[in-house]
C-alpha cells in the first residue's frame, strides 16, 4: 500500500500495517484467540501474558501455514511492536518455547505511518526514565538525551514540566497497571528509537518522487511521446551481437598482455612490493618508454593519440612530413573542449586565427563543407563548435599519417631503444627496514613544464606560409636569373 504524503512522495516499500493489525485483533477473541496466562512479578499477578509457543501455534493454525512461515510472521509481529517480550525486552524475536512470555501492546503505541514518533515525546520519555531510575540511563539513552537537549532546547522547559506531571499522574493508578504501562512505553521506544546495533524495522528506504506502482492512463500525448521514442530508437545504427562480441574477444586478446592484473607487470606491481619503479618507468613524458608501451601504439590510432609520449613522437614525425599543424589543431580542439567555460570564446577565436583563417600561420587542410559549417558555428562559439573539423583532421591523421608513422624510422628507432625492465627479485620486506620514500614530482611543476614545452613548440613551428613565400621567392629569383 502506498501512502501519499505532502510533496507527492511515494514510499512503496512501506509495510502494510493494516494486515498485521487485523491479525492482532483476531488474536483477542476469548474463544478463538490465543490462550492467556498471567505473569507473576514479585507479589503481583499481571494478566494477559502469552507464551511464544502459543502464539506460533495459533498463527500456524489460523492461516494454514507451515512452521517456518509462522515463525517468520511471528517475528514480524514482535519486531513491529504489536507484541512485546516480557523477559528480554531488547530481543525482538518470537521464541517458540513455553517459557518466554509476551504481551500485546496498547493501540496508542502501535506503529503508524501517519505520525512519526516525535522527538518531543522521546525527550519526555527520557526525562521520565531519568526520574524513575534516578539518573541511571543506558549509554545510548544518555547520548540521545544530551543530543535532544541541544536540538530542541527551546522546548526543554515544557519537556521537564510535562515529564514531572506524567510521572506524578502515573502514581494515580494501581501498582500492577503502573508496571504494565512502564513495560509498554519501554517497548514502544525500543522499536521507534532502537538501541545501537539493532535494526530499525520502520526504515523503508528512500522516498521516491514518482509512484512506480501507478498505472498511468494512456493519454494521447503519452502515446505520442512513446512513438517518438521508438522512432528514434529505430534510427539508431545497431550492431549484430556476433560482431560486437567478436570485437570484445579481439580486444581482450590483443590487450591481455598489457593488462597488469591479467599478465602481471614488469618490474613489479607497486601496490604489492612497494617498489615505485613501475610508475617511474611509465611516467607521462619519460625519455625512454618501455617496450610494452611502444608496442601498444601499434595496436590502433587512438592508443597512440592517448599516450602523451606517443603523441610527442608522432608530432616529431609529422613535423618532418610538414603536417605538424594537424596534430596541433587536434590538441587545441581538445583544450577547447575540456578547458574553462569562461575562456571558450577567446580560445575559439585564437584557434580560428591560427589554423582556419585563409592565410593563417598554421593553416590546416579541410574540405569546403566542413569549413563552411565551422565558420558559421564560430559566430556563436561553444565548446563543441570545432567538432566537425576536429573529426575530419582526426580521420585524416588516422588514415594517412598513421600508417606511414608505423613504417617510419622514428618509430622503429623508438621501438629499438625501448627498455624491457627486469623483474625485481622478490625481497621479503623486513619490518625494520627503512624504506626509501621519494615523492613524485608535484603536478603543479609538471604542468608548468608542459606549458613551457608548448610555448617553445609554438615558437619553433615552421610557418607554412613563410616557407611557401620563401619557395616562391626562390623560384622567382631562379626565373629572374635565366632571363639575364
Amino acid at each position, binding site marked *: 500500500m502506498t501512502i501519499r504524503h505532502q510533496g507527492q512522495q511515494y514510499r512503496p516499500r512501506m509495510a502494510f500495517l493494516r494486515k498485521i493489525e487485523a491479525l492482532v485483533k483476531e488474536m483477542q477473541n476469548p474463544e478463538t484467540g490465543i490462550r492467556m496466562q498471567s505473569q507473576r512479578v514479585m507479589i503481583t499477578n499481571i494478566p494477559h501474558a502469552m507464551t511464544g509457543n502459543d502464539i506460533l501455534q495459533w498463527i500456524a493454525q489460523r492461516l494454514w501455514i507451515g512452521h517456518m512461515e509462522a515463525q517468520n510472521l511471528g517475528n514480524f509481529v514482535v519486531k513491529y511492536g504489536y507484541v512485546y517480550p516480557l523477559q528480554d525486552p531488547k530481543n525482538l524475536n518470537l521464541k517458540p518455547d513455553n517459557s518466554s512470555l509476551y504481551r500485546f501492546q496498547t493501540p496508542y503505541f502501535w506503529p503508524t505511518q501517519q505520525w512519526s514518533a516525535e522527538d518531543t515525546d522521546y525527550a519526555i520519555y527520557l526525562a521520565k526514565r531519568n526520574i524513575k531510575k534516578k539518573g541511571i540511563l543506558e549509554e545510548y539513552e544518555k547520548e540521545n538525551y544530551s543530543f535532544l537537549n541541544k536540538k530542541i532546547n527551546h522546548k526543554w522547559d515544557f519537556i521537564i514540566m510535562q515529564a514531572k506531571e506524567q510521572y506524578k499522574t502515573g502514581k494515580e493508578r*494501581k501498582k500492577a497497571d503502573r508496571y*504494565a504501562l512502564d513495560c509498554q512505553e519501554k517497548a514502544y521506544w525500543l522499536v521507534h528509537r532502537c538501541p545501537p546495533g539493532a535494526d530499525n524495522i520502520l526504515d523503508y528506504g528512500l522516498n521516491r518522487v514518482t509512484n512506480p506502482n501507478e498505472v498511468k492512463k494512456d493519454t494521447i500525448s503519452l502515446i505520442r511521446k512513446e512513438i517518438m521514442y521508438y522512432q528514434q530508437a529505430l534510427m539508431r545504427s545497431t550492431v549484430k551481437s556476433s560482431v560486437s562480441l567478436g570485437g570484445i574477444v579481439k580486444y581482450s586478446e590483443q590487450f591481455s598482455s598489457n593488462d597488469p592484473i591479467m599478465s602481471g607487470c614488469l618490474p613489479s606491481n607497486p601496490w604489492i612490493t612497494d617498489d615505485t619503479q613501475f610508475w617511474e618507468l611509465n611516467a607521462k613524458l619519460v625519455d625512454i618508454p618501455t617496450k610494452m608501451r611502444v608496442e601498444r601504439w601499434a595496436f590502433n590510432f587512438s592508443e597512440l593519440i592517448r599516450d602523451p609520449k606517443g603523441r610527442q613522437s608522432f608530432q616529431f614525425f609529422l613535423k618532418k612530413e610538414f603536417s605538424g599543424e594537424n596534430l596541433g589543431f587536434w590538441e587545441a580542439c581538445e583544450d577547447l573542449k575540456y578547458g574553462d567555460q569562461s575562456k571558450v570564446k577567446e580560445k575559439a577565436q585564437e584557434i580560428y586565427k591560427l589554423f582556419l583563417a585563409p592565410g593563417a600561420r598554421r593553416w590546416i587542410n579541410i574540405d569546403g563543407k566542413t569549413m563552411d559549417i565551422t565558420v558559421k558555428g564560430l559566430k556563436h562559439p561553444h565548446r563543441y563548435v570545432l567538432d566537425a573539423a576536429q573529426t575530419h583532421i582526426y580521420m585524416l591523421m588516422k588514415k594517412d599519417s598513421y600508417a606511414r608513422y608505423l613504417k617510419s624510422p622514428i618509430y622503429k628507432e623508438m621501438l629499438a631503444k625501448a627498455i624491457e625492465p627486469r623483474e625485481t627479485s622478490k625481497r621479503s620486506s623486513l619490518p625494520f627496514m627503512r624504506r626509501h620514500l621519494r615523492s613524485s614530482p608535484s603536478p603543479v611543476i609538471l604542468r608548468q613544464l608542459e606549458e613551457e614545452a608548448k610555448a617553445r613548440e609554438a615558437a619553433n613551428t615552421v610557418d607554412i606560409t613563410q616557407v611557401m613565400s620563401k619557395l616562391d621567392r626562390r623560384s622567382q629569383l631562379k626565373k629572374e636569373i635565366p632571363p639575364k
Partner: protein
Amino acid sequence: MAKEECKALLDALNRVTACYRHMVLSVGGTSDSQNLREELKQTRQKAHELAVANRNKLTAALKDKDVSKEDKAEYERLWVIFSTCLEILETDMKRALELGLEFPLNMPKKHLIQTGMSGGTTGVAARAMSVQNIKYEAEPNIDEVDLKDLEQEIHKVGEMMYEMEMKVNVPQWTVEAKQDPGAELKSTTSAGASSGGFVSVEERKSVCDISKLLAAIVFSAVLIIAVILAVCVVKLS
C-alpha cells in the same frame, strides 16, 4: 501579578495534558470502558477552557508595549511552552479520534486488546479535573456520540493554533530554556539526589562499592576464623 497568573494557568494546562495523554494510552485496551470515554470528554473540555484562558492572557501580555525586556523574554518563554503543550494536546486528540473509531465499545464481535491493564483511570481523571470524585452522567453509547464532538474540537484547536501563529510573532528557537539537562531529578521528592543527576550516579555507585567491599572483607574474615577454629579442634582432638 500577571506573570504568576500565567504560570499557574500554564501549570494547570500542563497537568490536564499529561492526564489526557495518560487516558488516551488506555483506549482500545482492556481498561477501556464507557467511563474512560466520558473521562476523556470531560478532560478535553477542561483542557479547551484552560487553553483559551491561557491564550487570552498571554496574547494580552505579549501585545502590551509597556513590559520590560526581561518580562517580555519571560512571556515569550511561556508562549513557547504554551504552544508546545497545545501541539501535544492536538496530536493526542487526533489519536483519540482514530482509536475511538477503531475500537468501538459495544460491539460483540470487536474485542479489546488485552494489554494487561485491569484498573481504571478514575484517579487520573480526578487529578485532571481537580476534584475528589468524578460523576459519570453520560449515556451508555457515549463512545460513538462523542466522536463527532471530538472531530469538531480538533478543528477548533487547529484553527486556534493557526490564529496564534499568525497573530503572535514569537520565533520558537530564540527562547532559551531555563532548566538544565537533568533538572527533573532535582525537585522530585522520590529522587533523593542533592546535585544534578549524573554526578549523583557516581556518588551512589562509589558508596555501594564501598559497602560491598566492607561486606566482602567481613565475610572473608569470618571464614578465616572459622577455618582456624576447625583446625584447632582437629589438632586438639
